């Protein structure tokens, strides 16, 4: 600080190589130039933690996304393991899309879903990730690389993650048909969604998506009001009812959209739906209060209802699941130290601890093999292998989620992710779909 020319940045760089206790007054000024060179040189080689030391402490990465994975525990652990700060903002899916496009400078890392990525990436506000800089890239599930969970699985309909997972080159905004070295999002989290039910109140077996339209549940059903996701639930319902046969649910024609929305609008007018929800907590409250007994739901919402001592089941259905996936992408403006920190962070995200945390919440980690090391055999058995729990299953925060003997709804990872019928989507007829969806909400 004695030398007025030392900017905060160079000061930080000095601190890097000088032992903490010794004063920068003596050594700093003399060797500033060489030390800086050293620091810059080190930055260029991207290795695991060693490059960082002290200068990284001043980096703050601003991440925003939906509530599902914006967890303070992750920010705390990131600070502990990597040394830099992560500032999290949670928004609903529509607001996330809006912000990603309209305020590109307001974030460094976007935690978004693949269907959002399909909308956002072509706007040019983000930059692809160089997979060669990710040590854990080869640990990522093939689901996100070529779309196949196992060698002989078929690819589900909709915006499957691998279809928007890569771009042709560093500066390209058009999605690549086959994997390249440039990833749009590094996958982090995904799940297979289905209907949530109150087994104590439905009074019969629920086996099909069509059951949500059963007149017995008049005024006690709900679906979610996020068009890109809601339309897929609607399509699953209409197909299960036998009313419509779709060419591709993930990319409907205008006619298919009209028919789908007509069926839902009629049901709404007949009073089938109690409410429509837009955020996680709304769905929890609807279910917990008994306003609704069958509705579209997300896995942790089911867990949240159960944790209140209320019976709630994430019911597997014969038509299969509607899947979604999310990942981390880089804002276009990121460069230098922040960019390196972002790579470091994303690689760390795949290295296991976060994956295990997400697995314990009922989601799936994109790098399953690394997360296994951070879970007990019992946890792995319950969450991933679909085995009965040996002991109590605790949430990441230590609350009791399931008692011994419980089996996960829907079974193992392969049973659930293998039965995906479609992915959340953005369609070619998106504008028409959104108009129709709006009409449905207003009518």
């Amino acid at each position, binding site marked *: 600080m004695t030398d007025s020319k030392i900017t905060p940045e160079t000061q930080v760089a000095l601190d890097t190589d000088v032992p903490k206790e010794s004063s920068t007054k003596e050594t700093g000024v003399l060797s500033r130039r060489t030390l800086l060179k050293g620091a810059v040189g080190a930055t260029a080689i991207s290795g695991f933690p060693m490059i960082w030391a002290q200068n990284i402490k001043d980096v703050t990465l601003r991440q925003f996304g939906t509530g599902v994975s914006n967890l303070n525990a992750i920010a705390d652990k990131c600070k502990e393991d990597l040394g830099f700060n992560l500032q999290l903002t949670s928004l609903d899916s529509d*607001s996330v899309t809006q912000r990603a*496009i309209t305020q590109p400078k307001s974030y460094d890392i976007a935690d978004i879903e693949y269907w959002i990525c399909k*909308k956002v990436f072509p706007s040019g506000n983000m930059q692809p990730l160089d997979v060669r800089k990710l040590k854990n890239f080869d640990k990522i599930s093939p689901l996100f690389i070529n779309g196949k969970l196992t060698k002989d699985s078929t690819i589900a309909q909709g915006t499957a993650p691998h279809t928007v997972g890569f771009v042709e080159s560093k500066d390209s905004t058009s999605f690549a048909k086959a994997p390249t070295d440039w990833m749009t999002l590094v996958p982090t989290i995904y799940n297979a969604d289905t209907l949530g039910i109150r087994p104590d109140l439905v009074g019969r077996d629920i086996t099909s998506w069509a059951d949500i339209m059963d007149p017995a549940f008049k005024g006690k059903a709900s679906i979610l009001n996020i068009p890109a996701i809601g339309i897929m639930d609607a399509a699953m319902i209409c197909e299960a009812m036998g009313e419509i046969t779709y060419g591709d649910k993930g990319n409907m024609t205008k006619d298919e959209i009209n028919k789908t929305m007509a069926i839902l609008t009629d049901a*709404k007018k007949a009073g089938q739906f*109690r409410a429509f*929800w837009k955020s996680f907590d709304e769905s929890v409250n609807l279910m917990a*209060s*008994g*306003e609704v007994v069958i509705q579209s739901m997300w896995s942790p919402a089911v867990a949240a209802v159960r944790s209140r001592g209320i019976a709630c089941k994430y019911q597997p259905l014969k038509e299969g699941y509607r899947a979604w996936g999310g990942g981390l992408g880089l804002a276009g403006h990121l460069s230098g130290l922040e960019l390196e920190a972002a790579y470091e962070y994303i690689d760390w995200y795949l290295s296991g601890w976060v994956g295990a945390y997400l697995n314990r919440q009922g989601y799936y980690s994109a790098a399953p093999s690394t997360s296994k090391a951070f879970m007990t055999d019992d946890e792995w058995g319950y969450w991933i292998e679909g085995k009965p729990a040996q002991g109590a299953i605790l949430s990441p925060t230590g609350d009791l989620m399931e008692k011994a003997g419980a089996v996960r709804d829907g079974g193992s990872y392969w049973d659930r992710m293998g039965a995906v019928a479609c992915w959340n989507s953005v369609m070619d007829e998106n504008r028409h779909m959104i108009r129709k969806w709006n009409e449905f909400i*207003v009518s």
Partner: protein
Amino acid sequence: MLINTKNVSSYWQSLPLTLVLMTFLVFPLFVITVVSFWDYNEYSIIPDFIFDNYEYLLTSKVTWLAYVNTFKYAFLAWLLTLLIGFTVAYFLAFHIKTNGMQTLLFLICTIPFLTSNIIRMISWIPLLGRNGLINSGLQSAGLTDAPLEFLLYSDFAIVLAYVHLYTLFMVVPIFNSMMRIDKSLIEAAIDAGAKPYHILRDVVIPLSKSGIIIGSIFVFTLVMGDFVTVKIMGGGIRANIATLIYNEISLLQYPAAAAGAVVLLFTVILILVILFRLVDIRKEL
């Protein structure tokens, strides 16, 4: 010229407000109007001059439905807040004798407003729900067999919340204009043999007209532009015109939303013009 020095200084005085209004009201409105003629796709708005947004807006059944809903909510909320607000103001102004007591009771009226309106709205939900306090109370008292479904996520819930939220906006201006009524006018009316009903009709109501109009403007404009109440109390299945605009904004359809906003603005202005025709506010204040 015509502008004398006195006028010049008053122009200077109004300059700051003019600048603020130009920057934060007129300019944004201008931008909204311009954008309403633009085209758009999933992630960007495209400068253009098209009438598609208006064409869709004005020909779509949904818009008309939403306007019908909006006017229904506005009318019901206005009617109920007026009845309740007038009664409360009348009681405060004519039945409470001491000034101190009037002030105290008036302050009590404002106590609910110490919390945010979202909180006040959400606190209705546990009361009105299917297994809420009111339904379980009615059922245990044997008054109803099944829970009343219409209490929550319905038009009833929405209007109830509006009345709860906005009645004070009626009470304040009406109370204010009632306090200005010369008490001797009422005494004179009594002396002349007027019945209470006649006093109300021929003295109190005409003299508190300015308060009623001001209160009506408040309630009407607040309800016309509101979407949060409809979203929360309507459970997402009811919609008014602002919900439509909100949905379009959240789906990045800014030009469509802008067109909706321009049409709504004209509707509200039109109604305000009619209301201002009824009373010359500046003369009455």
